[in-house]
């Protein structure tokens, strides 16, 4: 039983909006990137590592601080929540023991919000961290999946679509990795590394089946996002003339 969903902009349920990423967009920041998915655009700037950690933080590890700036208006509770989610996500992808007792600041500026804002911000901050040379365990790619009234899952909803959804989930996956390690590429064992999930933020009500279905779809789409991010990062590697 296939249920076709008509999306406002004519996309298929699995189709993502056009992606664009540019690095080193800000002159003074140590690393910066701008990421846009369709009309949603976020600019991330990274400063660091700088000496000293905040009070109460473990001095044996690096500390990551996130500041979220809205497009208009003052920062309130939703922004604090985004900051906390981003901070936890980025802490899990950074190698925190390379530069102990330092602080790395990530500042995000929302340029335009047309749905899937949090995944766009996570992708932008990951690209900015790579641009700044902060040591990372792996990259993070984020995608948002929405569950429509009929139970169908659509990827990368725009703002209009988000308002009509039954439930929305933002998922962050580690990027898919080519490796020389023979065991990694085969699927023996319990959990191949590529099936890891870094973060999952849900809004609304959905059944467990809907959630697992979104996980599957999101994971498939994350492979496309990984490939895009990898191509973008590699194209800007300076070549030795």
């Amino acid at each position, binding site marked *: 039983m296939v249920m076709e969903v008509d999306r406002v902009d004519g996309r298929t349920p699995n189709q993502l909006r056009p992606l664009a990423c540019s690095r080193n967009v800000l002159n003074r920041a140590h690393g910066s990137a701008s990421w846009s998915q369709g009309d949603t655009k976020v600019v991330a700037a990274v400063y660091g*590592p700088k000496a000293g950690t905040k009070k109460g933080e473990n001095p044996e590890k690096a500390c990551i601080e996130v500041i979220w700036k809205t497009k208009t208006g003052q920062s309130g509770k939703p922004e604090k929540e985004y900051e906390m989610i981003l901070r936890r996500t980025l802490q899990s992808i950074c190698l925190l023991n390379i530069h102990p007792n330092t602080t790395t600041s990530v500042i995000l500026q929302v340029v335009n919000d047309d749905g899937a804002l949090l995944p766009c911000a996570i992708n932008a901050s990951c690209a900015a961290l790579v641009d700044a*040379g902060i040591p990372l*365990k*792996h*990259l993070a790619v984020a995608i948002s999946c929405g569950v429509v009234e009929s139970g169908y899952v659509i990827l990368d909803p725009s703002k209009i679509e988000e308002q009509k959804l039954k439930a929305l989930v933002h998922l962050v996956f*580690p990027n898919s*990795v080519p490796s020389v390690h*023979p065991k*990694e590429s085969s699927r023996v064992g319990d959990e191949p590394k590529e099936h890891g999930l870094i973060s999952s933020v849900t809004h609304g009500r959905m059944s467990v089946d809907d959630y697992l279905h979104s996980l599957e779809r999101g994971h498939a789409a994350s492979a496309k996002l990984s490939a895009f991010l990898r191509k973008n990062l590699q194209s800007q590697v300076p070549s030795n003339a």
Partner: protein
Amino acid sequence: MQHEKRSLTRNCTIWCRSQRHMEEKASASPASFISQAVVPGDVVLDLTNFSNHTIKLGGGLYQNCDAISVMKSGELKFSKPNKYWVESSQKRYVPCVEDHVLGIVVDSRSDNFLVDIKGPALAFLPVLAFEGGTRRNIPKFEVGTLLYVRVVKANVGMNPELLCMDASGKAAEFGPLKDGYMFESSTGLAQMLLGSPTCSILVALGKKVSFEIAVGLNGRVWVNAESPSNIILVSNAIMRSENLSGVQQQIMVDSCFREFKDL
């Protein structure tokens, strides 16, 4: 006539900051990754194949149980017999022993100067770390003085330590840099300027104008010439040359000088 005061080409230390022209072809199994662009998370070496060998890892790589993974995005390089590293260009600097850098004095204490070298922590320069330095003739550096120094200790978690003399205790061009103009760039540009044979931008500029230059591996470059307009010309040309090939750099220098003559 070209008069250059250049910082010495870098030594090939154990932790791999080799010059760019040393590109060896790898015959080992991870040949698919050597000289390729890599991103964080890529597993480039499987240590189960290397049971009895010693491998030296440079910047950008770390060991994760039985695999060597990449931490920074860049190009994976290999140098025989057993050195691997990732070459990348950043705006910040990771201190390494035996690097020659340009630091700025931020503060002075009774036994150390605190020097900013664009790294994660401030570096210490002992007040006696000068040729013939004794307690009676401690140099007085104001806040903001630019120094050409050598990194002697760069341990994780500790502030790096600097010295203003070379290994034999002579001053050898280290110390404060007077006059001139300092600008900041990326570590990749500094490595290109310090590569041997001399990079084409410096050769091209040297044919047109005489200038003095000191390049720090932390991305700071100091230029001095007779007139301010020459200083600006040389600095702008170097800043623009980062992503250009040798021939493009030559063309860019020629066009800079033509624009200048037209003014």
